């Protein structure tokens, strides 16, 4: 059977890279005596796949991991069993059983479902943007102006060349406080928005400068929040300071091809 696990990653764990997270979960399942399915052969490994690898330095409320199990308990029991042995910086928030793939249909991977993701981008304390953007309203004003550009063009490096890309169509939402974010979010969701469940693990900073973003994520189109910020800095004529901003992933969505509505990855059954 297949199940999709949703977990939070926060605190010092933001320094642990994706491959090490995979190793961590493999060992975690063994410690929790979870009945994972293994590949055959001399070096068997657990069958698992992550939806959208998170970069080093980022925190998240919504990491998704699909696992293949031979047996399991009720979802809430599974969440409890795994949480009981998790170390600080991780928390399981959902264990969502998936339907078995029907015969002769293509196996759906979590990664292939991903279409968009929400992020909260916050200025860390001890950093400033420039002399004129001091408060959250200064920042909101500057960013709104930035978003009014007909095009936001960035240079995107590939292995062989550097090409110019307009990233504006890839940004589907920008908001500056929780209420605005939720209001805008309601319009694009397939299911009603669930407020504060679970409690977000995003770091909170005193300066209050923050930005909610919804951007294309996944294999067909992928935009990193850092690139949006970099383009914004460029507009201001400033050099982008990556370590000044904390990026926190809020949710990862799949998009209904017909209605265009979004559902979180644990709201679908495949």
């Amino acid at each position, binding site marked *: 059977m297949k199940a999709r696990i949703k977990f939070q990653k926060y*605190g*010092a*764990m933001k*320094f*642990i*890279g994706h491959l*090490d997270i995979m*190793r*961590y979960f*493999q*060992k*975690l*399942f*063994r*410690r929790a005596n979870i009945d994972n399915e*293994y590949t055959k*052969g*001399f*070096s*068997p*490994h*657990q069958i698992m796949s992550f939806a959208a690898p998170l970069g*080093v*330095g980022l925190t998240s409320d919504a990491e998704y991991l699909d696992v293949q199990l031979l047996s399991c308990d009720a979802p809430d029991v599974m969440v409890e069993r795994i949480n009981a042995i998790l*170390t*600080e*910086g991780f928390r399981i928030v959902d264990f969502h059983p998936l339907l078995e793939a029907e015969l002769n249909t293509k196996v759906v991977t979590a990664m292939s479902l991903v279409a968009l993701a929400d992020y909260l981008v916050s200025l*860390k304390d001890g950093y400033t943007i420039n002399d004129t953007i001091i408060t959250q309203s200064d920042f909101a004003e500057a960013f709104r102006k930035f978003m009014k550009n007909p095009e936001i063009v960035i240079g995107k490096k590939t292995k062989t060349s550097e090409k110019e890309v307009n990233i504006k169509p890839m940004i589907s939402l920008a908001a500056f406080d929780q209420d605005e974010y939720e209001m805008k979010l309601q319009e694009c969701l397939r299911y009603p928005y669930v407020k504060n469940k679970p409690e977000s693990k995003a770091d909170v900073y005193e300066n209050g400068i923050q930005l909610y973003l919804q951007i294309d994520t996944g294999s067909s189109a992928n935009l990193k929040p850092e690139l949006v910020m970099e383009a914004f800095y460029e507009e201001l004529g400033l050099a982008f300071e*990556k*370590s000044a901003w*904390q990026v926190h992933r809020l949710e990862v969505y799949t998009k209904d091809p017909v209605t265009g509505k979004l559902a979180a990855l644990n709201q679908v059954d495949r």
Partner: protein
Amino acid sequence: MRKLALSDEILLTVEKPARYIGGEVNMQVKNPAEVDIRFCMCFPDVYEIGMSHLGIQILYDILNRREDTYCERVYSPWTDMDKLMREKNIPLFALESQDPIKAFDFLGITLQYEMCYTNILQILELSQIPIYAKDRTEEDPIVIGGGPCSYNPEPIADFFDFFYIGEGETVYDEILDAYKEWRKQGKTRREYLEMVARIEGMYVPAFYDVIYKEDQTIESFTKNNTAAPDKVRKQVEMNLSEAYYPTKPVVPFIKATQDRVVLEIQRGCIRGCRFCQAGMIYRPTRERSLEYLKKCAYEMLQSTGHEEISLSSLSSSDYSKLQELVYFLIDEFGSKGVNISLPSLRIDAFSLDVMSKVQDIRKSSLTFAPEAGTQRLRDVINKGLTEEAILGGSMKAFQSGWNQVKLYFMLGLPTETDEDIEGIAILSDRIAREYYTIPKEQRNGKVSITSSTSFFVPKPFTPFQWCRMDTGEEFIRKARFLKDKVREQLNQKSIKYRWHEAKLTELEGVFARGDRRISKVIYDAYKAGCIYDSWSEYFDYDKWMKAFEDNGIDIAFYNCREREEDEIFPWDFIDVGVTKEFLLREYKRAKGEKVTPNCKQACFHCGAKVFGGGVCQEHCPADAKEVSTDEGKN
């Protein structure tokens, strides 16, 4: 939430930030305010290497069992972090609490190999602890050294307050209890060291004076403090089955060199190879009971979630219950996706059966360590492995489908001739020839033989401690000579030859048998920028040579000199049980090309019997006649 010692900015600029954040599975969490003693255990190499070390895990576990003590860990910051910490004046901190080490009561440093010595100075300096022990005050942590290199601690004696000689399981409680007592009394640092010196196995360098002769050898080594013993007796844990074992080892986030459960099945070795220090200093051989190991395997796999378990010992084939243990592990855990990683075993029906069960034959190779190329030289070093056994074992394995063989040798062994060196090429070729006697249709493609040589370094407390060591030039000539000889063989295309760095070996030689005068060379080399010397990309031979030169120290005095039988060695003050008289007897037998039987065959009265246990008890009862002594005296 735990607060980190380093800012996001720093952690996101360095390679592998996980080296510095702690928070791993099974990390001990205590409130520093609620303990009496704060102890920081250090492995002076990079995190991934240090985290793979079993000894630290054992001590971490032992010390943290005390409610009054919080033992934390620290490893050498990598060079990128080193640079940042110096620039920003950030004191080195422990992984658990992220607190600066300078505020701790103890800093314990494990000495696993000589080439980590400059890293020790880095740890001290970044911790903002005076590098020289004599410059430390009551405010500084007590710096302890331990581990294999403490069997000759003299080259680094000036940097340590005291050394714990021997196995860590025995007297840490006494050391810590004495510390609490001392602090209550508010006495001086020196007075604490006097209390320590009275505990068996502890060596306080400041309490001894060395006088040198005109020829630079030692005239006398005497204590200057009545608290200190004349001889320091190494510590041995005699009851390994009841001894502490870390059933909850810390599991790193990033892949450590040993990313697996390590089960120490026995300590010591019965073989008595004459070049091997571990084979002498860990005597007597002591086994852990099968039941105890089964229990440990269960608990450790459960607590870590590791997908691999490996057995650790100097010679696993000599463990009396090996078959039972290995089959138990395969039956019990094999089906649960746990890999069983086998140490190099003697090739026989049992090991071939086991290997075919746990390894992919196409990908795995056979490993032999003949150490020398001819039977004559193998007799000199007392390596029991015969050519017949190697060829026979290889053949059995070839018939079962293996086609890769790895061979390990040493160059520069005592009495070695060019013929012995050529023997390495010939033996490698013979194994290939053996393979090609199998009919073509039954063969599994081509055979691949990899022969590697390291350069021999004479070590303290071995029969070869008197020996002259080759110079770097001699080593290189020998390696080139062997390379040519390999190319002359019939199956030369099937043989790969690899050799180690010779320059590093020279330094290892000096540190292995050096005296207190080497401290200054290490200090100067470190100050000139030497660090991570065991990493070839950082090893700077020229800086080292300059440090030797500046201090007027001649490498040849330490390496290229046959020592007199009655010379006082810098390490003679340590009593390892095995006597100098036995080692000399063995050295003479080596020169006479005489093999000495292993501990289970006959007792040759090495001296380890004084510890009253292990293989001595089983194979040499107290009233046994000294059957072998007469024969041994030649």
